């Protein structure tokens, strides 16, 4: 694993620098709101990287990842709310459940091509949303509010400070990021790209496309659900309207696409840009009805139209515009 990472010198140095900056950033930032934004960035990085595996590498564009986001968040929420089980445990449970859901859905849905897969996953997510809305034991529409003051913070993962959240999330981001890097250079990475490029020839050289698509789907589901779990513990109140609207699913794609779909660094960059844009537009233009989203939309259009390869495509021309899905 280390070999794979260290082989690419440019990447290695870049990563180390970025990491160091990320580590010492909180020391200089005294404004909790900026920390808040950084934390959101971490969450979106995870979401983007997760989606990127199925959407970016395997080229199966899912528009329903909010489903797994919700599952992750809810498992943690319920675990704390009903059984007082630490999120540190429940987040794994969440991943398992998401994986199972991915398997159940993936069976039939992964056979669909192009827009069909997108629409089907969309429908699946909508189902999930409505079902969660009407399941009373998970709080239904009232949502669950699992703020817990009695248990120790390290156990409940509910800190009053922002820094612990930031560092915990950062950890996970780094882990997932490195894993993606490893995958990128690994057999799996190549196979997924082959499938994305041309399923027939992938088959003809002996790639079990069904199996690898499923793998990709599971991995991305798991990562997204992890992001959900973390986010839930950050906001400490969850309901389906926060977690599972169609918009979240679209945003998740947007993060990856803006940064550079099918690349390791893409989602990370994308998450940063996206979150900053949206928080900035909201805090700046919100006073005029709808203006913030208007600006946001325009920026998205401009970026996506003129950088089809994502922001990273500027830096490595070779990949520019090549991610035709």
């Amino acid at each position, binding site marked *: 694993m280390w070999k794979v990472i260290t082989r690419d010198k440019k990447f290695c140095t870049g990563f180390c620098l970025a990491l160091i900056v990320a580590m010492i950033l909180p020391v200089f930032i005294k404004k909790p*709101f900026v920390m808040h934004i950084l934390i959101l960035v971490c969450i979106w990085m995870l979401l983007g990287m997760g989606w990127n595996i199925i959407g970016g590498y395997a080229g199966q564009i899912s528009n329903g990842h909010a489903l797994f986001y919700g599952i992750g968040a809810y498992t943690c929420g319920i675990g704390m709310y009903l059984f007082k089980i630490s999120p540190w445990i429940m987040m794994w449970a969440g991943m398992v459940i998401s994986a199972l859901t991915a398997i159940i859905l993936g069976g039939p849905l992964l056979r669909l091509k192009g827009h069909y897969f997108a629409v089907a996953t969309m429908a699946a997510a909508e189902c999930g949303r409505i079902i969660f809305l009407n399941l009373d034991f998970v709080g239904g529409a009232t949502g669950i509010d699992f703020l817990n003051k009695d248990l120790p913070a390290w156990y409940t993962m509910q800190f009053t400070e922002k820094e612990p959240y930031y560092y915990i999330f950062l950890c996970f981001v780094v882990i997932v990021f490195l894993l993606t890097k490893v995958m990128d250079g690994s057999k799996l990475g190549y196979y997924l790209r082959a499938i994305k490029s041309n399923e027939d020839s992938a088959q003809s050289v002996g790639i079990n496309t069904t199996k690898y698509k499923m793998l990709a789907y599971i991995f991305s589901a798991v990562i997204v659900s992890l992001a959900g779990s973390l986010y839930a513990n950050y906001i400490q109140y969850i309901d389906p309207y926060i977690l599972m609207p169609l918009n979240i699913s679209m945003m998740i794609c947007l993060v990856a696409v803006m940064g550079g779909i099918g690349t390791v660094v893409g989602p990370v960059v994308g998450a940063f840009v996206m979150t900053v844009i949206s928080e900035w537009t909201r805090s700046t233009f919100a*006073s005029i009805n709808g203006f913030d989203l208007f600006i946001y939309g325009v920026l998205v259009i401009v970026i996506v139209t003129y950088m089809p390869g994502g922001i990273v495509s500027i830096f490595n021309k070779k990949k520019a515009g090549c991610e035709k899905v």
Partner: protein
Amino acid sequence: MMFKKMEKHSAEWIPLLIGILLFVTVLQVAKAGGRVTEPSEERLSKEQQATEAEEVIIGVLLPMSGTQAKAGAEVLAAVEMFVDIINEESKIGIPLAEGRGLPNLNGKKIKIVYGDLKSADTALSEAERLITSEAAIGICGMFSSATTKTAAVSTEKYKAILISEGTSPSLTAKGYEYFFRIFPDDTMYVRDTYQFLENLNEMEDAGIRTVAFVSEDTEFGKNIEVIEREYAEEFGFDVVENITYSSNATNLISECLKIKKADPDVLMMSSYISDVILYMNTFKQIDYMPGMIIGQRGGFMASELFTALGADAEGLYSTSAWALDLNLPLVQELNELYKAEYSGGVDLIADVLKCAADVYVLSLAVNQAGSTDVDAIKSAMHNLKYPSDQLFISGKGFTFDEAGQNNEGVSLISQIQDGKYQTVYPKELKNIDAIYPVPGWE
């Protein structure tokens, strides 16, 4: 090859875009973290910052986009009105009106910073921003119970007052330290609704036996539905239909058909304005009108009810905590001022006034505390002195209990008669008789 073309195409744009993005990032950091470098500030507590500032800053969260933006705009206007009353000379006979600013803080003015209220998690985001980077001492706004819960996470964390009119009883059950609510909660509204029905049965022997519930599948609808069910048993009405509907439904046909089938004497609804409009239209189209439709505020307490439904809104009931026809002179004064200078002729609506009143009451507390220290304000809230002859809200004034609920508030029931809300219950407040059953569509 199209890719070649595209790269050329994008080439001249890329620098520009990077420009934009950098600009964005810089602005963001500058906005939020700009003054970080000043070492002095790092030592300053939020309270000190605020006192050093020229104004007392209050955060107000409103829906700025989406389906509720209109209501948000009305609240904004009403808030502006109260702020002007406080900050400028004014003849309205309420405390803080005469003189400029807050007397006990040597004339400091109230400054409102606004935040957007898209969903429950933006509520958290925005509350964070207003408290930590705008140094707001408290947060008010047009909260639902859901958004209140997330906003509370940050107000509790950073010690800021949170006054919300989210009506879910769960809010006061959570043991928030800095949470206050001036007007009643759902339990009270629903109980009064049933008492009103009983009262109708006794006085005019209306013979109301059956009720049906329609609630949207949100925090708001769900809570009320639960309480409605409890009290239906307690008061011995039988529930013939209980419908939860999807709040982003494109049509409500099946819901209406079901109700028509069940044909209840009274239909209790908790919906937002969009669905109220849709329900009334659909009822009209299937030519059905239950004896009484009574809404739990939400869409039934919105000025759009008149603009959008016109005559079709006649006869609708809604619970409420305030009304224009309260026999308090101040109410009329305020409404005149509001119509004349702030809303462009739109009457003041109960739910609008409620949110605006929160801001006013918070400023009162700040003034009484004579400081912007949050705990001082908190205790000021708890023993808030208000001259009873200057009341502009129903009830006897303000005494907040430990949970932060004001126990003096009363709930009342209005019916839309000749184009405006008229109080029909309780009898000490009523100024017109309730019409039951309401005539169907002729």
